[in-house]
């Protein structure tokens, strides 16, 4: 006997019963406003409040780890560099550490300093990019354009040092591929002075603006206990008061010499709330910290070789003989990047390669953050962990699911309207003038 089939309405009703009897299901994404990358959020909302959320990544899965096992180790660096366009040096830095550990390759001190400098320059540009996105989500497009304008010099500087604005092709096993010659130091110092003069402005624009404060204070809270239990990483964990930073906790490169400290809102003399405001604060403080680190590197950097195996053919031959496993970790702008590699003798390609990007660890943090928030806060809360989906997903088929879809324009409009509403309450000088 055939089972009686339920109609679409009955199915929907059944689904609703399972979750929350008075809730509406609102799917957002895979294409949506907070990010320019594909991820689907399903929210169960009661009125304006979010009661439950489900997250479905996988739309950007490219099978990079599989591709990696079909390439030789030098080609692998360039593949790792393309895992993420923003963290384009973080993945190679973690990978080279893993391979150097497995194959027992030494790295000259100067190369380690250069790796740190490029990594910290990347942090400055990534945090500024994120600050611009956050301003846009809140409806402050002037601030978006301002922040992205001041982000340009660091990209120009990276181009000057490495030849590229992103995908710098700098790390290689045993060192780096290009030196930073002393004649480039003045340019680097000029850029650092420029950013130092702007940090105070940025802190003022973001943290002392009553409308931004009203839109981000006590929004998207992740408590210290939740961050700890969910293994959050990077600025997301630090904004919740967890002093967790790979550069501080795990000695690698020259970071033990530089004595980097994990920054939390306490370093600004404020209490920790773990909200979006705190996450903005931590990232801006880290821009300032990166400037200090680079300045110190320029002072302390010794002369010498930049790689221990300068010839690529010799390097490949040495790597082919190598057998063993290794781990590489690096504090990327978004948090911990982790690479595990296993090499077998007489094989050019790695046998196992596992990549862990920061968003992979921070994915779970979204669940407590969205709880009891308003629909208009979805974009800023989603963006607040600085997610990078293509890093984390590494083939998805989209079926035409006709459910209630909120278009990105609609959601952004809701967020902007909320800022207007809130701004008119907290300040008479709202950036939109005082019409009406």
């Amino acid at each position, binding site marked *: 006997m055939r089972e009686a089939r339920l109609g679409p309405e009955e199915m929907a009703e059944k689904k609703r019963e399972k979750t929350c009897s008075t809730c509406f299901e609102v799917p957002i994404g895979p294409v949506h406003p907070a990010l320019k990358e594909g991820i689907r959020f399903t929210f169960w909302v009661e009125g304006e409040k979010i009661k439950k959320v489900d997250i479905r990544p996988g739309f950007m899965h490219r099978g990079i780890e599989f591709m990696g096992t079909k390439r030789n180790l030098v080609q692998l660096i360039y593949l790792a560099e393309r895992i993420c366009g923003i963290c384009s040096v973080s993945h190679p830095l973690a990978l080279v550490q893993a391979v150097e550990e497995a194959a027992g390759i030494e790295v000259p001190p100067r190369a380690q300093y250069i790796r740190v400098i490029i990594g910290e320059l990347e942090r400055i540009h990534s945090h500024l990019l994120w600050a611009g996105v956050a301003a846009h989500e809140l409806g402050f497009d002037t601030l978006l354009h301002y922040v992205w304008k001041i982000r340009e010099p660091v990209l120009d500087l990276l181009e000057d040092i490495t030849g590229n604005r992103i995908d710098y092709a700098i790390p290689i096993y045993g060192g780096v591929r290009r030196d930073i010659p002393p004649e480039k130091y003045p340019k680097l110092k000029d850029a650092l002075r420029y950013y130092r003069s702007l940090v105070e402005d940025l802190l003022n624009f973001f943290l002392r603006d009553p409308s931004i404060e009203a839109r981000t204070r006590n929004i998207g809270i992740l408590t210290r206990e939740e961050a700890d239990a969910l293994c959050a990483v990077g600025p997301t964990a630090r904004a919740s008061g967890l002093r967790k930073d790979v550069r501080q906790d795990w000695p690698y490169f020259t970071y*033990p010499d530089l004595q980097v400290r994990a920054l939390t809102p306490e370093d600004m003399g404020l209490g920790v709330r773990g909200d979006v405001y705190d996450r903005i604060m931590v990232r801006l403080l880290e821009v300032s910290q990166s400037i200090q680190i680079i300045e110190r590197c320029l002072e302390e950097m010794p002369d010498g070789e930049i790689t221990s195996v300068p010839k690529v053919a010799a390097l490949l031959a040495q790597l082919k003989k190598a057998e063993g496993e290794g781990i590489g*970790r690096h504090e990327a702008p978004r948090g911990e990047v982790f690479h595990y590699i296993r090499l077998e003798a007489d094989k050019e390609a790695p046998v196992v390669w596992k990549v862990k990007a920061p968003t992979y660890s921070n994915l779970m943090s979204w669940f407590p953050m969205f709880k009891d928030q308003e629909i208009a806060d979805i974009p800023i809360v989603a963006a607040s962990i600085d997610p990078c989906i293509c890093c984390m997903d590494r083939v998805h088929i989209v079926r035409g699911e006709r459910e209630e879809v909120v278009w990105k324009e609609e959601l952004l409009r809701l967020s902007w309207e909320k800022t207007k509403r809130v701004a008119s309450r907290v300040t008479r000088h709202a950036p939109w003038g005082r019409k009406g």
Partner: protein
Amino acid sequence: MRAQELLEALKERLGDKLRSPELEVEEIGHRRIRERGFIWAEIEREDLLEAVRALKELGPLHISVISGADVGEKIELIYHFAVGYGTPDGEVMVNLRLAVPKDDPVVPSICSELPGALTTEREKIEFLGLEFSGIPDSRKLFLPDELKAHPWRKDEPELSEYVRYTVAWEAKKDEGGEARA
């Protein structure tokens, strides 16, 4: 806690359950030299939860990821834990190796002890065809729901079939067929 002390404390708590432990210590830095430690050990799946509890007692515990590979008869998992974050230069990587037979691919979930391990456990289910007992959510995470194969397994013909199908579909799309929107 230094790596050596951590290993001693782990041995004391776990006894023979911690099999063939190895310690690697390296010196890092130029002016301020600091030690960095790795602990590699093997463990039976029954003892996994006990080991996680012991690690939790020994310091703030973070799981970076679980890496996995199909090594023929068995599936090998490596749990990469970082013990002791928050103490400058005090973190130790503890890597616990676990062999899971393919005819009984069940591993206890560590989500009860460390809820943050859910993402990485869900990934292992879809990529290696494992089962985690006691996992709060076992749905697919990164792969399409209709994909029955497990991409990291080396003994599954379904996957090559799926790849062939996808390639053929893509080729049709390039000819300017219906699929090209």
